């Protein structure tokens, strides 16, 4: 039995938050590791009486400052996201910004699993009408699905291609994985909430909720897939006038 759309949306939000928390943990971990390493190397060099050239000390201190700023930026981003994710009112937006937001949340996690993400922006400066944070959340969902599809395929080196393309009075944001793809029946079944969830692959709860979010912004979501050719999810949004 499928849950009511509101319940599905609520569960989707919870899952997004859990995934965001896990993604952010990765994102925070790297600058912290860098800061700790810089400080510790300076410390051990002092303790053991090694001479370190002043320019090397400067470089390490600069790295520490830079990485602290990176953490501040992440915190600022999380705050903005927390404020804005429920906001569905569309405004002119460069779609690449939503993609960059999404990658800030899940990018390290993907890299950690050997998945590279290539972004091609052919929008030539054209803006779409979309709610930035809600759209970023949808993109996170698509990247997460692609990640699961690739992991299910047991791939050690995998690629997700994100493309932004103008199409007449609309813009498309396409997320393509080169995973195993889905048979037509599975793709249809994936429209039902929970389909495939927890099965270690395939779309789960997220796609219907993502479609709901897209519709609320005046856009749409469709899937192109076939067994053996990977899956492309296409987000369509109206172009800003």
């Amino acid at each position, binding site marked *: 039995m499928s849950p009511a759309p509101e319940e599905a949306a609520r569960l989707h939000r919870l899952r997004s938050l859990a995934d965001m928390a896990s993604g952010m943990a990765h994102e925070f971990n790297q600058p912290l*590791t*860098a800061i700790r*390493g810089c400080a510790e190397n300076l410390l051990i*060099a002092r303790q053991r009486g090694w001479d370190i*050239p002043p320019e090397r000390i400067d470089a390490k201190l600069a790295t520490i400052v830079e990485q602290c700023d990176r953490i501040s930026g992440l915190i600022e981003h999380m705050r903005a996201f927390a404020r804005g994710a429920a906001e569905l009112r569309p405004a002119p937006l460069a779609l690449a910004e939503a993609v960059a937001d999404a990658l800030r949340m899940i990018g390290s996690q993907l890299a950690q699993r*050997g998945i590279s993400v290539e972004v091609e922006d052919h929008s030539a400066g054209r803006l779409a009408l979309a709610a930035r944070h809600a759209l970023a959340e949808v993109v996170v969902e698509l990247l997460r699905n692609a990640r699961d599809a690739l992991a299910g395929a047991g791939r050690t080196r995998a690629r997700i291609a994100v493309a932004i393309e103008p199409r007449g009075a609309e813009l498309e944001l396409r997320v393509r994985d080169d995973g195993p793809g889905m048979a037509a029946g599975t793709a249809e079944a994936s429209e039902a909430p929970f389909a495939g969830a927890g099965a270690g692959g395939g779309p789960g709860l997220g796609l219907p909720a993502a479609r709901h979010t897209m519709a609320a912004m005046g856009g749409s979501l469709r899937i192109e897939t076939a067994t053996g050719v990977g899956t492309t999810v296409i987000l369509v949004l109206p172009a800003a006038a």
Partner: protein
Amino acid sequence: MRASARPDPAYAGRVTAAPLILVVDDDWAIRSNTTELLEMSSHRVSAHADAGAALAWCRSHPDAASAAIIDLSLPDMAGTALLRALHELAPGLPVIIATGSAGEETLLALRGLPLAGLLRKPVRASQVLDTVAAALAKARP
């Protein structure tokens, strides 16, 4: 002002034939800080972000490395698999494994492997130096 770092007395005397340490970690922060630490303490370092690059380097530089520190979870290969591959390529090479997880599963995966040392992240700089020194001493009695 001196141009170069004075080596740690504990490692002095090896400067002419500074041992080369192979470092394999996909985290650039760990890779660069470990490299710097080892270089400051008079080692040479060949650092790689994945197992494939490390193995390719080893094949083109046979017997060049004196020890290796490899991360247990690498993007292209499990650290344990890299350990076995290195063991085949360079049977005498002491290999130290660094891991962020100290769980039972990790320890089981490592059981029976020819490990020269285990570093649990976050690793202290002194631990890295001590473990490398012990591995080198063991390798060249």
